[in-house]
Structures are given as C-alpha cells and as structure tokens.
C-alpha cells in the first residue's frame, strides 16, 4: 500500500480513538440540535435561525477539531518521539507530512459529513424542503478547514503543540478580518505602514472567501463560479503552506 496512505489511515485511526474528538463532536451535534429549540424563542423566521445557528456550530467545531486534533499531526509526534521510528523507515519526510495531512482531512470529512447530516435533520424541522445550497456552504467550510489544518501542520513543524494551537487559532481569527487590513492600508497615511498592511493582506489567508452562510440563510443565490474560484484560491494557499512545511521539516533535527 502507498506509504502516504498507510500513514494517513493510521492518523485517522489515532483521531477516532481520541476522546477529544468525541467530546467535540457531541457538543457540535448538541448545539446543532439545540438550534431547533433556540429558534422557538425568536419572532423571526425559524428556519433562518436554525440554518444560521447550525452552520455556525458546524464551522466552529470543525475549526476546533482541525486545530486541537490537527496539532497532534507533527508536534505531538516529535514531543512523544513516535516520529523516530517512522523517519527511520524507508519513508521520505514529505511523505510523512503528506500522510499526516491526508489523515486529518479524512477525519474532518467524516466529522463534517456527520454534522451535515445533523444540519439537514434540523433544517427539515424548520421547513419541509431540502435545501441543496447548504452543501455549497458546507463545502466551502470544509475548504476553510483544509486551510486551517495546513496552517496547524506548518506550525507543528517548527514549534510545540501549545504554541502551534495558539498560532493556528490566531491565524484563523486574523483570516476573517484580513479585509480590514486592506481598509487600513488605504486609510493610513504612512507609506511604510501601508506597505506592511499590504504584505500582510496578501500573505495571510482571506477566509471570508469561504463564508457564504449569510447568503444561504437569506436565500441569496451563490454562483458556481464563486464556489469554484474560492476553492481554487484555497487549494493554492494550501499548496503553498504544505511546500513551506516540507522545507522546514526537511531541515529539522529531531533531538
């Protein structure tokens, strides 16, 4: 079997035997289910509240799984020294990283899949039509999670698991405010500050591209083009992160 796939399946096995994953998943499913109860307290359209809350829960817990299960990708392997025996086998370092990444993507896909089923269940509780555009929103959330996981992987190659988690969460938050950096660059008077703001704007991920929850909730059509180009942007960003992770990891000493 392909070595990347062997490592990926082992990573998947590791995550599904991790209690943390189940705790997060149970909370996510409860929150998604809870959106039905919360919607009864509102005067607005119940279905909008249900979809808004359940998609937000799916997104939030997806990020938490990506970060907290994802940081175990590499930094925990180094801290626990489990990596020693893997690198000593006929496995390239890039194959190890690719396997770890793929393993977490499988874990995320399974979890996002379960949460999506739950989202559809509660959506049907609010209105009796199956809204396929929810899948567009879920797909873009998944692409966003792929980026967050790649950031976690990159941070894992050079720092401890705690710092990797902090960096990844910070980058996730910044990624949702990166358009503010563009505004800041326009308004600030100093040339150097504008340059810095521009560099940050173009180098940090713009995660707003993957947020179409508002449109879906309010029945605003999202073009297939937008979904396609957001996906292309996400995949290109992931490729850059993975290349950088491999370069750092290749040079690293496992003391």
């Amino acid at each position, binding site marked *: 079997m392909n070595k990347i796939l062997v490592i990926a399946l082992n990573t998947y096995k590791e995550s599904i035997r991790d209690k943390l994953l189940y705790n997060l998943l149970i909370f996510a499913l409860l929150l998604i289910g809870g959106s039905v109860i919360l919607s009864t307290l509102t005067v607005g359209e119940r279905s909008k509240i249900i979809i808004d809350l359940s998609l937000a829960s799916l997104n939030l817990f997806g990020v938490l799984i990506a970060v907290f299960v994802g940081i175990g990708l590499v930094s925990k392997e180094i801290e626990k020294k*489990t990596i*020693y*025996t893997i690198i*000593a*086998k*006929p*496995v390239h370092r890039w194959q190890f990283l690719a396997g770890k990444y793929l393993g977490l993507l499988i874990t995320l896909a399974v979890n996002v899949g379960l949460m999506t089923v739950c989202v559809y269940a509660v959506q049907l509780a609010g209105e009796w039509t199956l809204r396929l555009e929810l899948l567009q929103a879920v797909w873009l959330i998944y692409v966003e999670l792929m980026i967050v996981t790649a950031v976690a992987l990159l941070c894992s190659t050079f720092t401890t698991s705690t710092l990797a988690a902090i960096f990844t969460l910070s980058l996730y938050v910044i990624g949702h405010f990166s358009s503010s950096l563009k505004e800041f660059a326009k308004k600030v008077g100093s040339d150097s500050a504008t340059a810095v703001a521009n560099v940050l704007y173009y180098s940090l991920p713009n995660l707003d591209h993957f947020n179409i929850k508002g449109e879906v909730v309010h029945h605003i059509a999202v073009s297939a083009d937008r979904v396609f180009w957001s996906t292309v942007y996400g995949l290109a960003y992931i490729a850059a992160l993975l290349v950088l992770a491999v370069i750092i990891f290749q040079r690293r000493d*496992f003391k």
Partner: protein
Amino acid sequence: MIVCEQLSKQFVVGLRQRKVTALQGLDLKIDAGEIFGFLGPNGAGKTTTLKILMGLIHPTSGRASLLGRPLGDVGVKQQIGFLPESPYFYDYLTADEFLLFYGQLFGMSRVELKRRIDELLDLVGLEKSRSLRLRRFSKGMLQRVGLAQALINDPQLVMLDEPMSGLDPIGRKEVRDLILHLKEQGKTVFFSSHILSDVETICNRVGILINGRLREIGSVEELLGRYGVKTVELIVEGVTGPHGERLRAMAAKSIVTGPRTWLLFDSESRVDEAVALIVNGGGRLVSLTRQKGSLEDLFVKEVALSERANQT
C-alpha cells in the same frame, strides 16, 4: 556496513545560541556480521551518532554511509532496523496493528506480514498480548515490541539504542540472546549501551565514546589486554608462622578467616613464588582464580582520564 568519517555534530541551544558539541570527528568502520557495542556515559554522543545514521538529525560536518549508500538515502532503510532509546509508540494501537503499520511502511504485503508478525511476536514472547493496546504494556513489553518492529523487515543491519535499559535481568538476558540469534543469522548489529557486562559478553568489538570523542575501539580482549588490568586471587589453607607472614606481605591484599587466607595479587609475576611458598610451608592451595580486568575498570579509567584532561 557502517562507515563514519570525521562525523561531527554541534547543537545550538538557548536564546544566546550557545553551541554545544555532541560529537567530534568520529571515525568508525563496522564490517558485515559484526556485533558492535557502542559504550559511553550518558551524554557521550551515542544517541546522537545513531540519530545521524538514521537520518533523524543532520551532521554539522563529516560523512557517513550505511551499506555503501550515503546518509540521506531513504531506499537503504529498506535493509535497516532501528530501535530508539526508551521508545515511545502509538499507544492506541494493539501489538498486531502496530507491527502491521510498520510492515506496511516497508511495502510488505498483508500475507507476508501475517507470517512475519506471528514469527516476531513468538520470538519476543508477546504472542499472548497481541490484541492488547500498547498503552497497557509494561516498559519491558514495550521494549520487546520495539525490538519486533525493528526486525519486521528482516534487516541486514540492526541499530539498537540502549536496548537493555529499563529491563529486568531476565529481560536483559532475552535481549542478549536475541542479539546473538541475529548474529547467527549473519546480521550486523550496532548497539549502544551503558550496561557494560552485556556489551562484554556479546560484542565482537566495542567503541568507547566520551564527551563526543571516540576514545577506544577494538575487541574486548584487545582493549583489556592493552591495559593489562589483571589480578590473581588465591585461597590457601594451613599456611601459618613465618611462611604465612611472608605470603601475606607478598600479596596486595589479604584476609585471614579461620584456617583459610584470602590473597589478592596485582599481577601474575609473583604468583609462582607464592604457590611455591604455600607448598614448602605445608599448606594447601584451595583455589587460584585469574581475574581478567573488566570493561568496567577500563570504562571508569577512561572517564576519569577524560575528566582530568578537561580540568587541565
């Protein structure tokens, strides 16, 4: 099998980027079929050497090759087995799953692996615990399953970092027997240890590494012979009076217990004279034991020399 030429490693530590030398100009050549013991106190650079050879850390300078291939060649690892020091493994896996995972990394088929896993679990005595997750394993059991993963690919070269550490006397004997079993199969074994008696009994050659430098290399006999650390122990009975006094004066140490006297001679040079004195004095020689100097004596001597050199 293994060639190191002027292999060195410096680590940069702390915020001040202080440089610490872990290994200095290591020259080493290990031939096929040898059991080579790498000795040294903690922090001597043994693990660093093994990690460099296994591609876990990059050398600062120097060259090395394994089975004729330069460092960094991933393909050569197909022929190598490695057990790290105090191994940490995926504790969520059972022994069976664990070995299957490592076997698959060598591209082995499931059928081939099933046979090999049965064979190895039997060899390391874990066949009854094969379905148990590793988090339930004792330290000795982990060391054994670690040895099994190092042998999963039937390697030509086996590298073991402190394979006996943390094991009870029975476990240590089992590991010793296992290494000898590998030797019978024509494998080359390179292992580090600070348990000297183990090294002494199973190695063809040993290297003593202290403060990152290789201080000695050779067969155990060669090294001990070079230092000539030998003593002779005599137990005699019924030697009294002036004969007894002369005998005790000749010996380096003596203890009289009842009719028997225990005598220790620093060298063999005066032993013949002592035996003649016992016979002429009407006494009886109960036993004569030539005690070879141990590797431990040599080791302690080398460490002391190194410390003295550092102080001056």
